[in-house]
């Protein structure tokens, strides 16, 4: 039997990076940009935060570590890192109208390489004498939960045991859902993704919306990387540990039919699937079965993709111009 009280908090912890990635990609895709570079962006978001935190921890070795700065510096570095990635993607696909798929893949190659390079070489590059990158002080700030959470039994464990970035993820997803549906900017963004020609004729600056949505989407996704390394992985960077979460996040977008609200539920579900292999007993003799259980989230994603494509209600379709560059004077 699965120990739910132990399982649920871990599943939710796993879901947070997915949710960040998913929310970010929804915002991006709503503008008509299919950003396959999200996995790379999340790596860059994570490593930028790590670089910031590492620098700050090294600088304050003798003590004098201010928690507020310990949070602000990595957070800012992470946001700037993923913003730059977003700008790069937009410059290539929006300004230069490059193929979105290829640009995205190149961004992923670049981003993952960037993350692993600095993750593996940071110590050497900075000339410091620590054995591994372990940012325990920063991590403590990021994963601090409410002081009374431990006293509330299962309720505290399931609902209150996370660092602040987890709550921000949920708030962001809910706000993104609201903004897309109920605000002027959301309306305009949806129009840009559906039919940029129409949006343009209506006086909406298509390129600006694409730039903004994609950059904000990247910054949100980058936070997912930051959360993973600072909170979930307790501040320890190891290469490739973030794995394929970025890709799963992109798949989640289709699963939740471009609605961030559904994205919350979907990411918790996938967070659970991602670690369920730890909770399915395989016996000590059959460790290989664990590897098969790890397949579950991908198989479920496939099934979901197929089912989503089978039902084709007009409202549940991807933004109509997704993946297509916009050129006003196209004839």
């Amino acid at each position: 039997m699965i120990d739910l009280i132990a399982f649920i908090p871990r599943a939710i912890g796993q879901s947070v990076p997915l949710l960040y990635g998913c929310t970010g990609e929804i915002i991006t895709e709503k503008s008509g940009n299919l950003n396959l570079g999200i996995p790379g962006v999340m790596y860059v978001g994570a490593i930028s935060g790590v670089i910031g935190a590492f620098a700050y921890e090294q600088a304050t070795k003798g003590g004098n570590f201010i928690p507020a700065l310990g949070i602000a510096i990595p957070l800012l570095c992470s946001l700037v890192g993923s913003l730059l990635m977003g700008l790069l993607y937009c410059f290539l696909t929006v300004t230069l109208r490059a193929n979105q798929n290829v640009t995205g893949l190149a961004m992923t190659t670049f981003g993952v390489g960037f993350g692993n390079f600095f993750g593996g070489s940071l110590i050497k590059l900075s000339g410091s004498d620590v054995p591994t990158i372990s940012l325990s002080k920063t991590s403590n700030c990021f994963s601090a939960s409410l002081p009374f959470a431990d006293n509330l039994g299962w309720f505290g464990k399931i609902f209150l045991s996370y660092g602040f970035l987890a709550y921000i993820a949920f708030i962001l997803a809910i706000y993104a859902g609201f903004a897309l549906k109920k605000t002027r900017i959301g309306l305009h963004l949806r129009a840009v993704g559906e039919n940029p020609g129409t949006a343009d004729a209506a006086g909406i600056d298509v390129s600006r919306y694409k730039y903004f949505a994609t950059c904000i989407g990247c910054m949100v996704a980058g936070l997912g990387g930051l959360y993973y390394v600072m909170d979930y992985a307790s501040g320890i960077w190891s290469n490739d540990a973030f794995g394929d979460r970025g890709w799963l996040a992109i798949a989640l977008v289709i699963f939740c039919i471009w609605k961030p609200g559904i994205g919350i539920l979907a990411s918790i579900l996938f967070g659970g699937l991602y670690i369920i292999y730890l909770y399915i007993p395989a016996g000590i003799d059959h460790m290989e079965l664990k590897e098969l259980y790890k397949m579950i989230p991908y198989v479920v994603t496939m099934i979901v993709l197929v089912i989503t494509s089978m039902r084709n209600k007009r409202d549940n379709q991807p933004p109509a111009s997704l993946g297509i560059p916009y050129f006003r004077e196209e004839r």
Partner: protein
Amino acid sequence: MKTRKSEPLFHIVKRKDMPFGKQVMVRAIAIVAALIVCSVITIITTKMNPLAIFSAVIQGAFGSTRKMWITFQDTSILLIIALALTPAFKMKFWNIGGEGQVLIGGLGAAACMILIGDKVPDPVLILIMLVAAVGLGALWGAIPAIFKAVWNTNETLCTLMMNYIAIQIVAFFTILWEVPKGSGKIGIINQNTNAGWLLQVGNKYLLTILIAILITVGMFVYLKYTKHGYEVSVVGESEMTARYAGIHSGAVIIRTMIISGGLCGLAGFLLVGSIHHTITTTLAGGEGFTAVMVSWLAHFNPIAMIGASLLIVFLSNGAAQISQNCGLNQSFGDIITGIIIFFIIGCEFFIRYRVVFRAKKGAIPAPVTGEAVFGGGPGDESAVKEIKEEEGNDND
């Protein structure tokens, strides 16, 4: 009322086909610019001088006979995968599952080596390995294709998920067959008997290279001169036209993906049977993704793909040398690859469009154009004429 007082600073005009020579030049400029940026980054991170970087890159790729052969062998594998993906891309089917198709093909070959390696004679074994590898690769390609053909399921994500499913299946068998128990890896298969090891032509690198050349020519002919190739282009260009021409798009998609996956499986077969003689979850090593970019950079032209894959392998082997020399992480190569690709992707813009800047009123009436930046060669007379006309008008 927010009316702009000045004319827009520049506007973008689609150009008709650029002469081939000029296209090559634009790309060459882009590559040079990319190399400059890469060197600057390398200088910053490694504090090496530019000359040392240059020699290290050459050293890494062509430093010794062995290194040179390895460079060509790596190029061949990348080329085979890129060629495998090409018919799918021409069909606008975004197969980014090359990674998984290679891996599962490799698994098929490895499984034959392990399970029946000592039961059948070597030629038969190799034949069975080939069939298993190509068959499994084809299956891995066909599954997303069937979903696409029947329900129009998003193939990008489907092929991607198939990658991870393949990785987990390989991980499963790795533990099942691990040697020695508890090591978590299979190790060199049939090290003593060499059963299932592909024969060496000249040296152990040449076979792969020869097969790559064969496939390049084959794919060129397939795409250009066969009925299948024609059907692939029509389906890729317009679903409606395909229907009009009596082409069954679904069948073409499935057939093409079987070919695409099968060739990836062949690459897996070569990796296991001829190069590594073992299987790990990282057998494909990201080549499945790099190949997507190679194929696209070469505009789906098999011959141009030779150059594109050589460039990328050359640079990443060179980058590996630099990171080794400086004790840095291997991923340095990925960063370099990424930058090169960004530049080449970006330069396509200047091939397809022209930027026309407008001279401000009162300014010197000599508009700077995209043409001027990229050398208004004598080949593009219409463009030149247009500029002249514009100059004239501004003089009025």
